C-alpha cells in the first residue's frame, strides 16, 4: 500500500504507517517556525495504546476535512483535541465511533484500530463498536423520557441485565459515578429534560457509562454550561479516567490544560502538534500552536 501525501511544500511517499511515524517524531526541542509546514510535530505514539489511528483522511463530498492524521490514544488517559472552529477536531472525534457513517456524503480512509481491531473493517458491527466507544455530545441530549429510563435504555437494548433489581442497581451505580445521584434520587421517574443543563449533561455521561464502554468520546461537553456545572463535569472526567479512556474536544484551552494528559492541536484539517499537555501549553513547538494558545487567532 503506497500513498503519496503533500505536507507543506514537500512531497513524501508513505510506504506504511511506520514511515509516517518516523516522519512525525521529530527531534524534541526543534522549533517549527514555517507556517506552511503542516507536518505533525511531536510524538504520536504511546506505550499502551487503546486506539491507534494511522493516515486518517475524511472527505465531505469534495471537501477534504481531515488530512492524513495519525495518533495513538493511550489506555486510561484523557486526550484533548483543541483548535479553531472548523478545524476538524469534532469530525475526527466522530470517526472514532463511526458516527460519521450517518452522514451519507462522508468518506473515511486510513486505519483506526481499537485494541488492534480495525473499526472500519467490514465485519465490525457499529452497534458493538458504539457500545464500546461511548459518546457525549455538545448539547445535552437526554431522551424525552424519565431519568431512570434514560440510563436504563442502553443496558436494556444490549441485554446487559436480566432482572429489574439488577437494572435498578446499575442505574443507581451509573448515576452515582456521574455524581448525580444525590440530586435526582427522589425524582428518578421525572423527565430527564426537566433537569438543568449541567445536570442533563451529567445524565448523558451517566447514560454513556451505564453500558460500561472502554472509551468515552466527549464533543465539547461543557460548551453549553455555566462555570460551576463545567467544574463539576471536569471533576467527573478526572474521576472517570481511572476506568475509561477519554477523548475530549474542547474550545477552552484552560479546560484542556485542566483535564487532559495529552493534547493535540488541529488546524484546517491537519493535526499540527501533539504532545503532553504541559509541554503544549508551556512550550509549543509549532508556530501555529503558539499563535493559537497565546490567543493570536482562533
Amino acid at each position, binding site marked *: 500500500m503506497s500513498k503519496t501525501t503533500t505536507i507543506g511544500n514537500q512531497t513524501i511517499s508513505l510506504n506504511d504507517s511506520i514511515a509516517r511515524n518516523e516522519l512525525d517524531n521529530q527531534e524534541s526541542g526543534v522549533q517549527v517556525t514555517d507556517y506552511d509546514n503542516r507536518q505533525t510535530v511531536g510524538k504520536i505514539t504511546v506505550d499502551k495504546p487503546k486506539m491507534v489511528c494511522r493516515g486518517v483522511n475524511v472527505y465531505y463530498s469534495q471537501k477534504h476535512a481531515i488530512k492524513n492524521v495519525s495518533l495513538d490514544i493511550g489506555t486510561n488517559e484523557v486526550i484533548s483535541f483543541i483548535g479553531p472552529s472548523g478545524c476538524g477536531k469534532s469530525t475526527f472525534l466522530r470517526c472514532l465511533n463511526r458516527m460519521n457513517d450517518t452522514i451519507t456524503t462522508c468518506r473515511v480512509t486510513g486505519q483506526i484500530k481499537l485494541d488492534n481491531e480495525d473499526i472500519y473493517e467490514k465485519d465490525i458491527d457499529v452497534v458493538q463498536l458504539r457500545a464500546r466507544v461511548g459518546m457525549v455530545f455538545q448539547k445535552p441530549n437526554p*431522551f424525552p423520557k424519565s431519568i431512570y429510563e434514560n440510563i436504563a435504555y442502553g443496558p436494556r437494548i444490549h441485554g446487559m441485565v436480566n432482572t429489574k433489581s439488577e437494572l435498578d442497581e446499575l442505574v443507581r451505580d451509573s448515576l452515582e459515578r456521574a455524581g448525580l445521584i444525590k440530586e435526582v434520587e427522589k425524582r428518578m421517574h421525572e423527565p430527564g429534560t426537566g433537569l438543568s443543563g449541567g445536570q442533563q449533561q451529567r445524565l448523558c455521561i451517566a447514560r454513556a457509562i451505564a453500558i460500561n464502554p472502554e472509551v468515552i468520546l466527549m464533543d465539547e461537553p461543557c460548551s453549553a454550561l455555566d462555570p460551576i456545572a463545567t467544574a463539576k463535569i471536569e471533576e467527573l472526567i478526572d474521576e472517570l479516567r481511572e476506568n475509561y479512556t477519554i477523548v475530549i474536544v474542547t474550545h477552552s484551552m484552560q479546560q484542556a490544560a485542566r483535564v487532559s494528559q495529552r493534547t493535540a492541536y488541529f488546524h484546517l484539517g491537519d493535526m499540527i502538534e501533539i504532545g503532553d499537555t504541559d509541554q503544549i501549553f508551556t512550550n509549543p513547538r509549532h508556530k501555529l500552536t503558539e499563535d493559537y494558545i497565546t490567543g493570536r487567532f482562533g
Partner: protein
Amino acid sequence: MNKIMLPASTPERPKSARRDIKTIVNASLARQHAAERRFRWYGLIAISLGLAFVLLMFGNIIGKGYRAFWQTYIQIPITFDLSIMDTSGSGKRDLQTIDGADYSVLVRSGLRKLFPKAEGKSQLRALYGLVSADSPYELKRKIQQTPNLIGVEKEIWLLASAQVDTLFKGNINRMLDESERSIKNDQIEWVDKLQAAGRIEEKFNIALFINGDSREPEQAGIRGALMGSLLTLLITFLLSFPIGVATAVYLEEFATKGRWTDFIEVNINNLAAVPSIVFGLLGLAVFINFFGLPRSSPLVGGLVLSLMTLPVIIIAGRAALASVPPSIRQAALGMGASKLQMVGHHVLPLAMPGMLTGSIIGMARALGESAPLLMIGMVAFIVDVPKNFFDPATVLPVQIYLWSDLPERAFVERTSAAIMILLAFMILMNGLAIILRKRFERRW
C-alpha cells in the same frame, strides 16, 4: 437656482443631521404604527368575513334542517279485529297467519272512524294518504311484539305522510290554489281537525337514525349511509395508516437520499394534488374492472379513498419525522442503538402525535369525499343497511347529494339534517386530532 439649492449652513450639518434623524425616525415611527394598525384591521376584517360566512352556512343549514329531527305522528284508533287478522279462519292466534293479514285494512278503518264523512274514491284516497305508506307494516311489527293486542281497540300513533308533515311544520303555503300544492283542501281540513283534537303531534325522529334510505321522505334515514361511511373509513384507515407511516419512516429514515428518492418524493407530492375524481376512475378501472371486486361496496370505496389519503399521510408523517431533533437520533445511535431501534424507540414515538394528526385530518377529508365514490357506483339508491364490506352501500356525502336532488320538500329538510350529522362527525374527528396532539405531545 443653484444658490437656492445650496444648504445654508453647511458647517453645522452634523448637528442638524442628528436632529433630523430623530424627527425622521419619529415620522417613520408614525408610519410604522399606522402600517401595523392597518395590518391588524385587514386581519380582523378577513377573520370576521370568514366567521360571517361560516355562521351564515351553519345558520342556513341548521335553520333548514333542525326540524328534520322531529317528525309528525297522527293518533288513530285501531281495532285489531280478529276477523281481519285471522286469515285462516281457524280462530287461533297463530303468528304465521297473523303475518299474512292485510294490515292496511286496519289503518283504513281507523281513519274512516275518525272521519266518517269522507266518501268517494278520490276523497278516500286522500284520507288514506294522511298516514305514511309504512303504517300497515308498523302495525304488523306492533302485533309481533305484543300479540295480545289482538281483538283490542287501541289509540296508536302512526307516522304521518310527508305532505302532512310538511304542512304541519308550516312549509306549505295554504293560500296557494289546490292544484299548485301537494296537499288537498280536504287533507288540510282534516289535519286542522286532528290538531284541534290533539291527535297530531311532532315526536323525536328516531326513524332518521335507524332507517336506511327510502323513496318516502318520512321513512328515509341515514343509517345505511352512516354504516357505509363507517365501513369505508375503516378500510381506508386500516390500509392507509400503516402503509403511510411505513412509507414515511422508510423515506425519511432509511432510504439513501438520491435521484430515486427525490423522484418518489415529487410523485407523492403530485399525488396529493391529483383531483379526487381521478382516483375514482382509477379505482373503477383497477379494483372493479380488473380485480372484479363487487361494485358499490365499502371495500372498493375504502381502497379508492386509501389511494387518495395515502399521500396526505405520507407527507404529514415525513414532516412529523423531520421535526424530531437530530440530537435525539445521535443520542440513540451513540448509545449503540441500531437504526431500527433508534426509529422504533425514540423517533417514531416522538413523531406519532404529528402523524396521528395528519392521518385524522386525511381521514376527515376521506369522510367528506364523494366524487371518487360516484365513479365506483356508491351513488346507487340502496335501502338496506350494509352489513359487511361487500354489501352495496353509499356514504354520507353521497347520501346528501342524492337527497339534495329529490324534489320533495321533506327531503330538503333531511338533506340539511344529514349535512349537520356529517359536520358533527367532522368536528368530532378534528377534535380527536387536537386531543391526541395535546395528549401525546412531548417537549424536548
